[in-house]
């Protein structure tokens, strides 16, 4: 299919170990790249620091998600138990001071809403689920789930240059450097 148009995704380079990947990541961070990522079969402690990752905004989503849960539960319990249909048990008062009775449900909904916000917020931020990823075009990239350590620098990074980026990857110890192209 010679008519298929291709677009450059970026350079992919393999590193021989987790520590080589870690040191390579520090150099790319210091070179000022933004649109790039590391791929490893297992989590590497401290790699986020080596990549210069900023703190995620997710905790704020979760905080407000959790607060929404607390407020929902309080409104639900208060409205039904105090306003609409007061339930008198052991002649305890039915008013705002009945709030200890609402604490369990307020706690539970806080956890539930927080959990949902974590899950769906995270999926949104990392853009999952998705059907394909440009790096799947590379054959050697399959090793990333087994024994390969990779760094990919995307072409849309402002610092990306066809030769300069390849040389940088070679210089910091990257092997099997490959220009990955995605079908348009």
């Amino acid at each position: 299919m010679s008519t298929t148009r291709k677009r450059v995704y970026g350079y992919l380079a393999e590193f021989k170990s987790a520590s080589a990947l870690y040191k390579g990541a520090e150099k790319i961070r210091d070179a000022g790249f933004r649109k790039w990522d590391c791929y490893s079969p297992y989590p590497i402690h401290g790699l986020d620091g080596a990549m210069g990752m900023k703190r995620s905004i997710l905790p704020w989503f979760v905080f407000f998600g959790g607060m929404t849960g607390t407020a929902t539960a309080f409104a639900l319990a208060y409205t039904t138990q105090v306003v609409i249909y007061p339930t008198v048990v052991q002649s305890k008062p039915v008013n705002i001071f009945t709030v200890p009775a609402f604490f369990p449900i307020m706690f539970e909904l806080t956890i539930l809403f927080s959990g949902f916000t974590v899950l769906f917020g995270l999926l949104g931020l990392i853009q999952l689920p998705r059907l394909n990823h440009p790096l799947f075009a590379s054959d050697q990239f399959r090793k990333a789930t087994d024994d390969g350590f990779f760094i990919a620098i995307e072409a849309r990074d402002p610092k990306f240059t066809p030769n300069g980026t390849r040389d940088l990857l070679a210089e910091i110890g990257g092997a099997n450097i490959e220009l990955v192209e995605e079908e348009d």
Partner: protein
Amino acid sequence: MAHHHVTSADIAINGDHLDSSKVSKVKRMALIVAVLGSVASIYLLFFASEKLRGPFAYSWLFAFYYFLTLSIGGVFWTLLHNVSNSSWGTSVRRTFENLGSTFPWVFLFGLPLLFPQVQVYLYEWMNIHRAAPGEVKEYLHHHEHLLSNKHWFMNLPFWYGRFAFYGIGLSAVIYGLRKLSTAQDTDPNPGTARLLTARYHSNYPLIIFALTITFTGFDFLMGLDYKWFSTMWGVYLFAGTALNSMAVIVLVCTWLKSMGHLKHVTTSEHFHIMGKLMFAFTTFWAYIAFSQFFLIWYANITEETSYFSIRNTGNWNIAMYFLVFGHFVVPFVVLLQAWLKKNPKMLSIVAVYTLCMHALDHYLITIPERGVSLGHIKPEVFGDIQVAIPGAFWGDILAFVTIGAAFLFILIRALGQHSLYPNRDPRILESANVSN
């Protein structure tokens, strides 16, 4: 955040020892305050007029139990470190052990509780037992049936036996574990044998620990009102213990680091972990405190609700509300920040704060009972039952400062006895390079 990778070249081969000249001034001051305070306290506990002796017995119990929880917590963290086979804590383990090693000494401050002259104001059930003519159980069966049912547990010989068990049990545990740990510092061939021994001899002591924290709470605090009971009492005290002993550990580590000790081995990662443990136990305390309140509030049984009735009378009510926000809401929100937990100075501020809240917590556990019990036990001396005894507050401060100064002295003394971290532990490098 790139760390310098710590290697064996960074470890002090002969240990990291506290410079005694730097701390001698604080130590001497603490000793002087403790001795003077103890003399005054002995007078107030045994020789002063009844009007002073009664309220001061409660002051002493409050201060004693406060510092006892901190010591017991030191033993707890040592045991937990060993049984969980943890590697992160190796560089701060000696601080756990040093804090735990204050237990036998702090326990000595509980000895006044052995004397009937002090017990008479605190434990009404003992008065009833002592005043019973003839066979005690038989008398209780007819006159005080509740105490008759509780007689198998609440009787004087068993109480004294338990007292001995509390003192000897954890003292033996922490003495043995600390000796095992410090002997490694000078061993020319340190191996893993001691780690395995420590792990083995930390599992059953966790049971001794659990019995001690639970039943000292039952005997010394819950026994103030023999009619009252709460099945969550032990775990409630444990929650405050674990939280605040970790606060003391954070303070000690920060202090040692500010003097240039624990260099390379204790990093912001360790403070982060300790901060997370403080956060966890802040939440756990709230969970347990609320559960206790909730069960009592819902069941609405007179014997149980008395605890909260007393503490919601008069100004105690304000203090109880303050406890909810001060002991839970504020530290919860503050400790959520990750950067704060990684900063030893900021975390120390929170640690000082939680220790203040712990004092309030224990003040509210022990002291509101004073006006009620004294008015009930000896109305001819103390008058009617009242919400609080006027002027007794100064006794609380005296007792707290006395035992606090002694605690400080014992802790600094313990810190100076051995290397400040286990320098020949096989896992010290793993701990020094921990990342979380």
